[in-house]
């Protein structure tokens, strides 16, 4: 890793306030009963205990964003003919995401492969990504829903981060991971902490070592793919699912979206909003035909996408980072770990239904 700086824990808010003068700072903050990445407000503080309810993906793919705006105008040519002006709205906001967790940051790498794929660059995503510094706080303790170590990550991993922050007693050690992070860190008036880097690494390694090992899910793609036509399996795992969007919307890697036009009078915006593959409308066609009309088919796509289709396209990388939000906040306590484990050991036609 590159440059290392440190900051006293009690000086963190002051520093974030300082950073906030030149860029938007998004940090986890408790509001009501949940915690979300919100614009930093020194008066309201930040909440770094545990994992935020929602993921920081909204820093790069907001819940909604205007892609274009349009306006119809009257012309004086042919009667009743209208003109039309369209303008793209490219984001241009330097941002610091502070307090993402390693799973969240890994989630950004999942998004990068889709939105920044060589010739096919999503300008909105890339504009945000290029101007965003991700400062990730390494975890000190896995929650009961955490399984990052089973999907290729770890509680102190730096993938997807620009800066990795490690707690050491009364200090945070900030280490640059990327060039962008390095440049940002060097601009900050923070004391050097190069000599603390080893200690920080040891602290992260200790957390990693203490994390209960579980069976790896990295081998899921083949098995999940092979179960495609095994409808009883999917009927079984999807039975209790409510088909809501809580899992998708809280997930740091779910990136599917909808595009709709919203207008008033002759003007409006084309907005991109989060969408959810568990929704019936997601694939509903104009003709009324729906290729994924049942909950089981949609669950198969959701699990399939994360553990088979995405890895097929991206060198085996799963599009699940093991943050466990979908487990923790599911209204019916669906557990994706158990679904995938079940898939890994499932014997065809062994059982008509498989309760998970």
């Amino acid at each position, binding site marked *: 890793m590159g440059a290392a700086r440190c900051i006293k824990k009690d000086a963190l808010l002051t520093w974030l306030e300082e950073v906030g003068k030149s860029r938007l700072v998004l940090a986890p903050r408790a509001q009501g009963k949940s915690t979300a990445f919100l614009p930093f407000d020194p008066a309201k503080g930040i909440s770094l205990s545990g994992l935020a309810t929602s993921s920081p993906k909204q820093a790069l793919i907001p819940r909604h964003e205007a*892609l*274009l705006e*349009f306006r*119809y105008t009257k012309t004086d040519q*042919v009667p009743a*003919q*209208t*003109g*039309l*002006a*369209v*303008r*793209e709205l*490219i984001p241009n906001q330097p941002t610091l995401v502070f307090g993402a967790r390693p799973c969240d940051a890994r989630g950004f790498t999942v998004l990068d492969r*889709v*939105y920044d794929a060589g010739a*096919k*660059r*999503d*300008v*909105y995503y890339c504009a945000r990504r290029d101007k965003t510094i991700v400062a990730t706080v390494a975890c000190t303790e896995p929650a009961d829903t955490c399984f990052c170590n089973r999907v290729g990550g770890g509680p102190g991993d730096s993938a997807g981060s620009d800066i990795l922050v490690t707690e050491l007693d009364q200090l945070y050690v900030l280490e640059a991971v990327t060039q962008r992070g390095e440049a940002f860190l060097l601009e900050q008036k923070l004391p050097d902490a190069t000599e603390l880097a080893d200690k920080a690494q040891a602290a992260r390694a200790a957390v990693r070592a203490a994390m209960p090992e579980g069976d790896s899910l990295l081998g899921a793609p083949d098995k999940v*793919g092979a179960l*495609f*036509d095994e409808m009883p399996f999917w009927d079984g795992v999807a039975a209790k699912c409510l088909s809501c969007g809580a899992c998708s919307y809280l997930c740091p890697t779910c*990136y*599917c*979206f*909808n*595009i*709709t*036009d919203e*207008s008033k009078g*002759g003007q*409006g915006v*084309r907005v*991109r909003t989060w*969408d959810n*593959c568990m929704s019936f409308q*997601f*694939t*509903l*066609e*104009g*003709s009324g*035909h729906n*290729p*994924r009309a049942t909950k089981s*088919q949609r669950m198969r*796509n959701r699990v*399939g*996408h994360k553990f*088979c*289709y*995405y890895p*097929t*396209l991206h060198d085996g990388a799963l599009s699940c980072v093991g943050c466990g939000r979908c487990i923790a906040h599911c209204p019916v306590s669906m557990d994706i770990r158990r679904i995938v484990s079940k898939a890994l050991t499932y014997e065809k036609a062994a059982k008509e239904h498989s309760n998970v």
Partner: protein
Amino acid sequence: MSENPGTNLYLPFMATIQEVVRETQNIKTFRVTLNDPEQMRNFRFAPGQVGQLSVFGVGESTFVINSPPTRMEYLQFSVMRVGELTTRLHKLRKGDQIGVRAPLGNSFPFEDMKGKNVVFVGGGIGMAPLRTLLLYMLDNRTDYGDITLLYGARSPSDMAFSYELPDWLARKDMSTVLTVDNGTPDWAHKVGLIPNVLKEMNPSPENSVAVTCGPPIMIKFTIQALHALGFQDEQIITTLEKRMKCGVGICGRCNIGSKYVCQDGPVFTYAQLRELPNEL
């Protein structure tokens, strides 16, 4: 407007409707040119590729460009009135402004088909994607072997491109068979379901490729008929339709397994389709 559309995947070309042709009760054809003459000049596509048409304030939807790349006076889209967007499109008239994001997706393997006999089997609005390839082949006639077209619709009044049919029927360099499910007294062609008529026509699979598009049920039975005639999976080509939003393989709704119809399709051989999970 953006300085250089094309870098923003979501920014359509601005375009003007030059002509609206009423094909049937519920199908209209739109002939469209891009507003920027240079964009229009530089526009390249291959037969089978699709475009997203925007009616701003309503949204976007995917349609195949059914004019061939050999005739670039305009881009043609045929639209069946089904939902919100198509209903609004049907209300548009000459001179109205729309957005076009194109070309998207893959195309028919028209290079690989050179020297082969081609059997087109189209049903209803499914004739649109076949039309672009058919006209392309007619414009490059010497590159291809025998061309046979079987085009069917529910009734004579449901036949799109009716103004082109006399020419196709009269041409000596292709053979055309028309059929309807329900005939009328003045209907001079076949009456019968497409797969049955196809079997009657008995095209030879020898050095042939069959290209089919239409309603899912028609495709299903047409493929069965083609199999019965001895066509192999690799010799059968079809083009799919799914609900799409982004058109560039990101938004996640048109996937069949790890393939995105908007990007890896819409054109697939039946051999490729069989490799995909069964989720049409």
